[in-house]
């Protein structure tokens, strides 16, 4: 085994709890009687809704059109009829327009054998257009439209392409299972990306708690002579954050406020790569994704292939339901996910997991005064001083907080995790950012 790389400063080591699901093969979630498809599932402008109540839709039909440069297409997850168009609340608490589809009729792709398309004749431009058309966004959680990410400025050259198989959030095993079960497909997806980006060198970063995936990917890469280097990484959260991953893999820092392309790098999640493969080879838009349903509140934790728009409640039911002592339902990972009010909230493109936590996991001590232990400062991989920032924000000194580089905070939750006084640091920073932006707009 090669020596393990990681990023140098900060980070934490929470228990990963991946053993709950990392041996569970991905299975298809049952198709339920309703799909709620939000028009805002990605970073950027909400999509423009193309359907009206009563309209008939087909599987994979375009129902939301990208509105603007940073936006993404949205497709119907199933054939059926548009029941209504309504406003719903997403897990993040954001309001979004959503198309409610009642499935009926026959699936065009699901359960059928589709002949693969030979894309070798397609130009990079055509591949890019196909990615845009298929509504692909970053599936690691940031949901940044992929076609925008791959639209490299003319003066920049992609020296490195890093495929993100880190999955540093505890509990989540979707990417892990994907790498094990769809190894070949991921490498084909990388071939497509190589054609678009023409990178100098390709790496796949995987954390060392997925040894079987590292082994399988490495074996494949060597056998097929792909020239792709698998980089095993030391276990540390938040290594899956793209800038930290780049620091760990190629040892370079992306300047603050800049994108990886500024240092000639592009990072893509393995899930995204797989989605691109399916879009190009099977002409399948992004209408389903793999996610993990886990946590001690879930009776049968599992990795599921889920159609976008499926209600969280239906997925939980699929996994045997929740235990009576469940106190919190989380969309995403435990470090950065959102706690949800309603089980009717739908799965979106960025949903990497559904977690049901009992008191055992969330069991939080009372908030006490800060004793300046400095643990948050040592945990922050950005180099911020969370305790000072929080103090400024609690005194409503938002401008001062900005001067302490509040905007560089990634809300990864490391400081909050280690805080012995249980101060809600991340919550404070979110508030601070909102208020600071508000003040900026005013002045």
């Amino acid at each position: 085994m090669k020596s393990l790389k990681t990023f140098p400063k900060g980070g934490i080591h929470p228990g990963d709890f991946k053993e709950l699901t990392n041996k569970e093969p991905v299975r298809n979630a049952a198709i339920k009687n309703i799909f709620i498809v939000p028009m805002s599932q990605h970073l950027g402008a909400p999509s423009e809704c193309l359907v009206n109540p009563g309209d008939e839709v087909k599987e994979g039909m375009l129902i939301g059109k990208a509105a603007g440069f940073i936006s993404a297409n949205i497709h119907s997850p199933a054939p059926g009829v548009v029941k209504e168009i309504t406003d719903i609340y997403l897990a993040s608490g954001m309001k979004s327009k959503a198309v409610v589809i009642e499935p009926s009729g026959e699936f065009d792709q699901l359960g059928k054998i589709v002949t693969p398309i030979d894309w070798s004749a397609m130009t990079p431009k055509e591949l890019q257009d196909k990615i845009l058309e298929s509504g692909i966004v970053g599936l690691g959680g940031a949901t940044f439209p992929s076609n925008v990410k791959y639209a490299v400025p003319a003066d920049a050259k992609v020296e490195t392409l890093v495929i993100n198989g880190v999955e540093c959030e505890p509990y989540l095993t979707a990417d892990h299972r994907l790498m094990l079960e769809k190894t070949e497909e991921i490498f084909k997806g990388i071939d497509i990306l190589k054609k678009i980006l023409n990178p100098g060198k390709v790496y796949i970063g995987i954390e060392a708690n997925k040894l079987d995936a590292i082994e399988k990917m490495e074996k494949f890469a060597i056998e097929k002579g792909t020239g792709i280097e698998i980089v095993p990484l030391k276990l540390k959260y938040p290594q899956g954050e793209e800038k930290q991953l780049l620091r760990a893999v190629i040892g370079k820092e992306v300047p603050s406020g800049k994108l990886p392309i500024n240092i000639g790098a592009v990072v893509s999640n393995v899930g995204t790569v797989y989605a691109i493969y399916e879009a190009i080879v099977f002409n399948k838009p992004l209408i389903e994704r793999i996610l993990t349903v886990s946590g001690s509140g879930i009776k049968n934790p599992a990795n599921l292939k889920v159609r976008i728009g499926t209600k969280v409640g239906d997925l939980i039911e699929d996994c045997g339901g929740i235990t009576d002592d469940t106190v919190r339902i989380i969309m995403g990972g435990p470090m950065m996910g959102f706690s949800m009010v309603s089980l009717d909230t739908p799965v979106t493109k960025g949903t990497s997991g559904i977690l049901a936590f009992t008191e055992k996991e969330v069991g939080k001590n009372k908030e006490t005064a800060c004793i300046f232990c400095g643990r948050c400062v040592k945990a922050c991989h950005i180099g911020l001083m969370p305790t000072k920032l929080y103090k400024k924000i609690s005194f409503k000194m938002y401008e001062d907080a900005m001067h302490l580089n509040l905007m560089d905070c990634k809300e990864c939750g490391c400081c909050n995790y280690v805080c012995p006084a249980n101060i809600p640091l991340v919550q404070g920073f979110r508030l601070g950012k909102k208020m600071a932006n508000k003040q900026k707009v005013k002045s």
Partner: protein
Amino acid sequence: MSSDNKFIIASSPHIHHKDSTSRIMLDVIIALIPAGIWGIYVFGARSFVVIAVSIMAAVISEYAMIKVLKKGSISDFSAIITGLLVGYNMPTDVPLFIPAIASGFAILAVKWAFGGLGANIMNPALAGRVFVFFSWTGAMTTWKAPSTNAAIDTLSGASPLGHLKVSLLEVTGKGPLGGPMDIMADYPKSSCAVSMTEWFSSSLGVNIDPHYFDLFFGNISGCIGEVSTFLLIIGAIYLFIRKVITWEIPIVYLASFGLMVWIFDGLRFGEGLFRGDVAFHLLSGGIMLGALFMATDMVTSPLTSKGQIVFGIGCGFLTFMIRVYGSFPEGVSLAIIIMNIFVALIDRLTVPRLFGFVKKEVKK
């Protein structure tokens, strides 16, 4: 659509490290206990009374402030630590009102006047001790001989550092004196240390002055909790393992102090540079209690690793200056509280480098 309202909505992260403030405080108390038991063992049961009075005074003052100001919590154990440390810094035969005043001053004037836990500028226990030290210097420097080395009584219970200081005043300008151990020659030795020296020289062929053993294990006069270097180190190792303290402050403090002693302390004895007796200085006085348990107080030490190193160097330098050139035999308490004052400044000057910033281009 139905909605289930039994779920708790909270901001991420949804998992937390299980350490809490009270757990950290409890660990410090656990780490301090062995050295206290040794103090009670060698100086007698009155030591226990002194510690108990200190803790009670601290807890009562804390409780009163919590009731009056309606903030904070007694269950974070922080007042107990303050009381414990005040007690550890007292001689056994001190009149009991002195530890009570020290604890009361620590909690009321040093801690709560600034806003309670986390808001104080100086270490409360140390400031309390310094306050009573300058108010009742006589009572605070009257030592009792340990039961394991009772002959010290013939020197009216002088502590090694006090003995050294007094002896040096008597012999100033009388040519080369060797080092602290030559002056300590007339300082009583415990029979245990003498037999250890014999064992070392007969089986290993190493000659170690028995006084070093007395200093290391605590068969000397001094404050209740500071004499046993050995047990304080054991306690500190526990805190290291529990990650309550990090290496920066204690190691840098001891190293910088040791370095200063090694380079300059020989001059006092008419010797040249680089002739100081580092072991003697590291083993005597309150340096271990101070460096391991009081300089590492989270509230009154810098936040960053870099800042903690600067803080440690400052503490080491000041301890050396006060101990060697000051009129008092001991300098740890003063050194630490002076450095406490500089913590805010150190924190300002040791801001960590931000990720993605090439040089120090932190926005001003």
